[in-house]
């Protein structure tokens, strides 16, 4: 509750700061301060100090899982702001508003991570989506950005419609929005309930950009200003997944036999389409869009397996994936050439930066000693534990091997190819060190995951 209220309030503060504060750096610092404050109050709540007590009538529940995820999301947002807040200046003139929208998105994320009622889920998803439609189109003079925004808005509203319809069906069957009421089953589930559940499944798959509902993703990620793509592809996606797993655990846990095969098919399709299409991309930004689809495929394994390993693994996955992707996008935002050739000879020019990118890429491809490996490992372990799904594991690892081919093209360009023309990329040392923090976190979590798992068991 702490994070929910403060993020909403701080969003409003940020809107006014655009009028009151003349300097952009002041606005930026205010946003960073707000993020730190959010993190602090959320950690307080995790340890049992809630500053606000609002009776939500059982519609929200802040358990440890939700609070830890909130901390993760806020922390990633903080790192994101530290890295990329400066680059948002390039997007347009409404600098303070962009930051305000980010706080509103966080507010939605807190809702989606701790819902107990489908209404709150719906509210959360919408509060996340609407600022994103705006941010996608924030580069007003760029046609691609406008197109992406419109496309996202149209398809997003369609999926929202599906979701509402699903919720209505479920309400029609069970007479309540609360997951605790929806969950129990007496006898066979009714057709209405199953239809509702499938509609919810599809709309969540849409938001998580799982195939075959992924068609908006490459265009939107490509068209949106790179800084916002970064946020959309990582933290927002993570929140959707948390909502996804909570929904199917708490509301539809008893219907596993119904949705399990559907999820498995969606997972395979997502892995397949994401990875195979990514191989053929020429632009790194578009490759990362497809890579985010393929990584979503891996995260879907957690929903498929639906056990403790899967849930904790999903949190680790979210961290590993987000850290690496935020890092890569932050570098990408500094570059003029988004194709692989843009990376040519980077190791010669910026050896330290190249090393950090290498760590991000290795983590994304799941090489040991990085968090990316352990999170993929946990996904596979959870899936195997779920039983009878060896084929899914084999598909997943084969796809992981395919993913090497596009991730390593970045390494090949950086280290083994020479730039034909000098691609000058200027980065401040503060930027480099923040990136280094991300990379260090990836390695630390990869070697000592206990640092992270400790949170669950004290």
């Amino acid at each position, binding site marked *: 509750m702490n994070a929910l209220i403060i993020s909403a309030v701080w969003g409003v503060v940020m809107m006014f700061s655009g009028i009151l504060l003349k300097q952009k750096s002041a606005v930026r610092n205010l946003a960073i301060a707000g993020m730190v404050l959010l993190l602090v109050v959320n950690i307080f709540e995790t340890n049992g100090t809630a500053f606000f007590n609002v009776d939500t009538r059982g519609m929200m529940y802040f358990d440890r899982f939700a609070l830890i995820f909130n901390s993760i999301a806020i922390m990633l947002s903080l790192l994101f702001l530290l890295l990329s807040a400066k680059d948002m200046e390039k997007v347009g003139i409404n600098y303070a508003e962009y930051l305000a929208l980010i706080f509103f998105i966080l507010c939605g994320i807190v809702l989606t991570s701790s819902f107990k009622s489908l209404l709150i889920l719906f509210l959360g998803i919408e509060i996340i989506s609407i600022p994103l439609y705006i941010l996608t189109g924030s580069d007003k003079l760029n046609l691609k950005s406008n197109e992406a925004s419109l496309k996202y808005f149209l398809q997003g509203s369609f999926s929202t419609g599906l979701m509402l319809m699903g919720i209505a069906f479920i309400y029609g069957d069970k007479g309540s929005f609360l997951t605790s009421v929806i969950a129990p089953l007496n006898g066979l589930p009714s057709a209405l309930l199953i239809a509702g559940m499938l509609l919810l499944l599809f709309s969540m798959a849409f938001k998580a950009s799982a195939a075959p509902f992924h068609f908006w993703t490459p265009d939107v990620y490509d068209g949106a200003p790179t800084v916002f793509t970064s946020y959309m592809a990582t933290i927002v996606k993570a929140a959707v997944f948390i909502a996804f797993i909570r929904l199917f655990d708490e509301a539809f846990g008893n219907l596993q036999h119904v949705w399990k095969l559907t999820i498995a098919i969606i997972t395979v399709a997502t892995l397949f389409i994401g990875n195979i299409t990514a191989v053929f991309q020429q632009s790194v930004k578009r490759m990362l869009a497809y890579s985010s689809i393929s990584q979503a495929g891996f995260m879907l394994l957690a929903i498929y397996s639906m056990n403790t390993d899967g849930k904790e693994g999903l949190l680790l996955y979210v961290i590993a994936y987000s850290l690496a992707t935020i890092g890569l996008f932050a570098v990408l935002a500094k570059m003029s050439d988004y194709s692989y050739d843009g990376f040519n000879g980077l190791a010669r020019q910026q050896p330290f930066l190249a090393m950090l990118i290498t760590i991000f890429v290795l983590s994304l491809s799941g090489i040991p000693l990085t968090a990316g*490996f352990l999170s993929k490992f946990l996904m596979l372990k959870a899936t195997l534990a779920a039983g009878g799904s060896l084929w899914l594991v084999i598909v997943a690892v084969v796809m992981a*091997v395919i993913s090497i*081919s596009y991730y390593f093209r970045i390494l090949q360009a950086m*280290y083994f190819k020479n730039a034909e023309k000098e691609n000058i990329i200027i980065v401040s040392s503060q930027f480099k060190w923040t990136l280094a923090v991300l990379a260090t976190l990836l390695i630390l979590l990869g070697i000592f*995951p206990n640092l992270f798992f400790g949170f669950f068991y004290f």
Partner: protein
Amino acid sequence: MIAVLLILIPLITGLATFFIRNDKLVKAWSLFATVITLAVSISGIWLVKDAKYLEHHGTWLQILGSSFSVKLDALGQLLCLLTAIGYFLIFTATWKNVYSKSYNFYGLMLLALSGLMGVYLAMDALLLYFFWELTLIPVYFLCSQWGGERRIAVTFKFFVYTFLGSILMLVGILYLQSKTADHSFSIKSFYELQTTLSKGDQSWLFWLFFIAFAVKMPIFPFHTWQPDTYQQSPTSTTMVLSGLMVKMGLLGLIRWLVPILSIGAEMWSYTVIPLALIGLIYASLIALRLSDMKLIIAYSSIAHVALMCVAVFASNEIAMQGVLLQMFNHGINIIGMWMVADMIEKRTGTTKFSGLGGLAQKAPTMAIFFVIISLANIALPLTNGFAGEFLMFTGIMKIHSPYYLWFTIAACAGVVLGAAYTLRMVRKIFYGELSTEVTGFEDVSLNEKLALSLVVILILVLGIYPQAILNMTDSFSKDFIERINIIQFLPSKTGI
């Protein structure tokens, strides 16, 4: 203690190397690191006898059921010694080679060394997987950065092959772990699965592991990455790949696959043995027609490793002793061969027969060294190759199969072909008319002489007294055979 040091010394010295900017210093520093590693591995064999100093169990990833367990057993001792000697030889022989950004080169080489040591010593399946991949990453960068013309594509192929193999192995490891009684990755719990895992499980799990090891060794038909990679990589990395890293695959068979999935191994052994033998003959025949020294050595390596693989699956003590001895000797010999190839390439810029010939006139010392190494490669008596191959043939003769004679004949044919292509290579390069393209060919320099004499000394000493190694591995082979013979008494066995 010793085991941890073997991993840590190269790791730390390797990381430190990245920060040294003086070329001479980098070389001296990495040579120093290998000398220390060599000293530690020798002390692990002859000085420190107390078992508690040879192993270490650290807590690590206990939530996942894994731990940092390393132990120096006879197999580990043998391979660590080989690897330490191999690295010492490589760094000595290539002392005068010039690499751009040598700090990166030597740093990565040492990291690969650390990974190799980890693979040899790991007593925990997850740890094994970690080190398995960690050897791959430095080698990927080494080959792609300092290799030949087609290096990027070739190395990528190599990487994908190995990665696919290892990640399938990971699936196998995970599956086995889910079946263990205490849900742990430790080798002990895995060994207990030998008798509890059903026949069907063993059968398909076998392939998940075998492909990983077969790619590494490499065994036909998983070998296609190897000749290209060996040819395109910088020679010192090729020495590591062919002399030392192929041992990872054999170690995987000996320590992990065969003892854990004994029934699976027995079920499939009559598939694997013919495959390996086909590879043996096929590689030898190709080597006979090739005219590039580097490629011939690469194919010769395929042939030799295939023979060792056959002997592992022969499942008897003599063959096992032969494999262990030959693992060591093959490493020394093949590194010796590559050293000469590197010297020739450095001096003439080519290793193709068309540009070479009659080099013995210009470099008599090098010729003598190369002839001795080649004879060891053919396994002539009194060279180190002989004892190992003889033991392996004896073992292969004893395979319990109606086709044992055919297996032996095929293996022997491979050896005869081996003699043919090796001697052909010696003749084309060192004897005959002096090639017109060779000018100013210098004989071996001091550091090269040092490295080559060490190789030749090892060849002769182990040729005359192979017992030095056989004594070391004796009890290991006995245990190995005892362990896999348990399955003879299982009730499920009767169904096979």
